[in-house]
């Protein structure tokens, strides 16, 4: 029988690891991620999880040890955020290039400065082009389930990539919700055999040089290009694999999460808002309120942000006349939100151009309320009627 418990997001993440049974878990503290490591360490200390606990001296070594472990064949788990992610960047941006299916939570935290230890998706959005798969969770159940699914996605032989399961610091990390933990046997059945390093390994029984110098004169440069092309294919393949895995999980557990994007009351909508992460709950409530008032509004939730689910996105956007995009981080180069910019790049794939509005809010742990979401809905409605906000709208800003 699945058991229902009430846990915060960080504990939910640790339960995800407990179900997935990684061989190695690396821990290092940083707010608001620290209790993920604490909970995992406790599971290991109590013998609930038979994994090696890597209590290392910094995030750089967190990921470095996991890389070593994965190269030897280990299933690995860790979590970080913000500055910790920044510090680990050197091994971080190598993990996808090594095609190692490491699973790591990003408990999203805003970027300093001003000094800040609270939620915001600036960390995850900053590393979006590095090559990790990024899945953003709406609630604690989705955190637990997505971590389990992330192993199957990353280890799929058509994918072979590391996966970030992202969830908002503070709003999910510290918020308690009921979560249903599936039976161990079901999780075991779902996880199957470890499939980490069948393609390349640091193993004296089949010696090979992993990552020799590759480039410049033939065949180096050509080999490098072929390697990159394959990596990009793996990323695109995940757009097929992620739904497959979600479907399999649903059939086993009854837990149903939209794999790439979720369309909420979108079918007959004239305009919509787009959300990512925990703000989606407030967004859905605001949509319900607006619907009650007769507004034809819907919502698009982005679950898989990397790779960008272009086809699913085109299909959703084709249903509406205007969209407001709510971001919890900023894109400095474009003076807008990163998610907004992604949608902007999707527009040429639509049959007709639709107006877009960029809203940024919820930075540094501030709340995104139903009111904020209502404001977003209003801007979408205005845009649908031709009144398109030209500048990015900053929510909960001090005046």
């Amino acid at each position, binding site marked *: 029988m699945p058991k229902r418990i009430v846990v915060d997001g960080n504990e939910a993440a640790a339960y995800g690891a407990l179900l997935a049974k990684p061989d190695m878990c690396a821990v290092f503290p940083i707010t608001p991620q620290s209790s993920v490591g604490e909970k995992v360490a406790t599971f290991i200390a109590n013998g609930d999880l038979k994994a090696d606990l890597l209590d290392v*001296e*910094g995030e750089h070594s967190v990921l*470095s040890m996991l890389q*070593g472990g994965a*190269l030897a064949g280990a299933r690995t788990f860790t979590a970080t955020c913000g500055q910790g992610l920044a510090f680990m960047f050197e*091994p971080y941006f190598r993990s996808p290039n090594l095609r190692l299916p490491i699973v790591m939570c990003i408990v999203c935290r805003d970027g300093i400065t001003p000094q800040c230890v609270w939620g915001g998706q600036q960390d995850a959005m900053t590393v979006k082009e590095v090559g990790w798969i990024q899945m953003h969770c709406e609630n604690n159940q989705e955190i637990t389930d997505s971590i389990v699914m992330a192993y199957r996605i990353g280890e799929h032989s058509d994918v072979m990539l590391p996966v970030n399961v992202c969830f908002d610091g503070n709003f999910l990390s510290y918020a308690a919700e009921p979560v249903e933990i599936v039976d161990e046997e079901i999780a075991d059945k779902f996880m199957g055999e470890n499939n980490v390093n069948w393609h390349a*390994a640091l*193993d*004296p029984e089949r010696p090979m040089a992993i990552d020799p110098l590759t480039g410049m004169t033939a065949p180096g440069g050509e080999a490098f290009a072929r390697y990159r092309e394959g990596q990009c294919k793996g990323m695109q393949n995940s757009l097929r694999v992620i739904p497959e895995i979600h479907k399999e999980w649903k059939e086993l557990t009854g837990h149903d999460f939209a794999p790439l994007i979720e369309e909420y009351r979108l079918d007959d909508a004239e305009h919509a808002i787009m959300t990512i992460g925990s703000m989606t709950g407030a967004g859905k409530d605001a949509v319900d309120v607006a619907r009650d008032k007769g507004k034809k509004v819907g919502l698009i939730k982005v679950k898989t942000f990397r790779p960008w689910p272009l086809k699913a996105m085109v299909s959703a956007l084709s249903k509406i006349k205007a969209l407001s995009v709510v971001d919890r981080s900023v894109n400095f180069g474009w003076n807008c939100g990163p998610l907004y910019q992604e949608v902007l790049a999707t527009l040429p794939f639509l049959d007709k151009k639709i107006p877009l509005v960029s809203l940024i809010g919820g930075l540094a742990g501030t709340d995104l309320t139903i009111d904020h979401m209502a404001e977003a809905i209003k801007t979408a409605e205005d845009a649908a009627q031709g009144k398109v906000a030209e500048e990015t709208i900053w929510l909960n800003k001090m005046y």
Partner: protein
Amino acid sequence: MGNAYNTLVVYPEKCNGCGECEKACAKAKADSTDIVHSRIKVLKNLEDEYFGPVVCMQCGEPSCVKSCPAGALTKNPETGVVEWDEDKCVSCTICTLGCPYGGIYYNPLMSNVMKCDHCGGDPECVKVCEPKAIEYKTEANVYKDQGEREDLFAPGLAACLGCNMEILIRHTLRHVGPNTVLAAPPGCVPGIAVVGINGFTGTKVPSFHPLLTNTASMLAGVRRYYKHIGRDVQVLALAGDGGAADVGFQSLSGAAERGEEVLFVCIDNEGYMNTGMQRSGTTPYGSWTSTTPVGSSLPGKSGDQKYMPLIMLMHNCEYVATAVMAYMEDYHEKLEKAIQASKKGFAYLHVFSPCTTGWRYPQEKTMEVQRQAVATNTFPLWEYEREAEKFAFTHPVDNPTSMEDYIGMLGKFRHLSKEQIDHHRNTVATRINLLKAIAEEGIKPLKAAV
């Protein structure tokens, strides 16, 4: 590496022409007092006082053997001695044409050629040589032992001529053996294609090119997983000083502190030689590098070298030692201890590794620079064994040679002023005094006060 053998080493400059060796040889080989039977010949009839023993060199590729039409000369693969078979010999003496060292002679009394056979491993001539102009060297045993192991490094490499690394890598890989995962962070080791290039591997063991910053932690991960699944796989880091003492230090320190079961070899060439000879934390005071240039305003590196071996000792490593390839037996002894220690905890070997290109000295002086560094106490050789609570010098130097002799060999120090050399002397003296104090006091915990 082929087999290595015990050999007679002769020092003509020590010979006084006494001829005792000839007498001993004639007695041993022919039970005669006539030195015509001696297989060692002493130069002693020259106008000036010039002496020297002439004897078979037991060549690796003996031309006497190749010149023998009767198959009467063979090199014994076990002992290395070039053996002469009387039954086969036809006394054609063509062998004497082939030998460029005068190592095989015709003995008119015996109507046969004759040559040194090392007296079966206990040469009589050595015993009677008072000035020690002949020595029977058995040090090569280490080469013999290692020669039988597989060379796990690919043939050919892209190192500078005279580089110390090839010998280090070949010896180290032979010794650690095939059940090893090797990691070599950016630097000269991967620079000479140890980790492979464009689809080709440089070693016969699995190798990885980690980050400059994460060698220790990455290898710790490999070791942890194999241990997790019950396999005993040796992990070995061949890192430069940058990857150990500078930007690699955090992960090294962390792994050592956690007691990760890693064998970490720091190949210290005192700078970033692969990228063009920039300074590192182990670059010595006053040294020229491309980022501590010498000019009218700057006199080379302003600060002192970071002394990594002691820093690592304080990490409670299972084993810490300093070593040079010039003392190969010492290196292998330490390597063996380090391998065993790395099955229980962290083992750290700090190898002083001169760089002919960056330090600017002649290619063939690489070993000599190491010997001088040891002889001047610039790089003292010692080891620390945690479990045995032992700290000891392995090559104590009580009467160090002149610092000027060492500094004078190296182009990177050529500009040093007298004050700078004195600074060096002081640094070296301070370090050796500290090490001696540790050696004298011992590593054991203080006894409880009575």
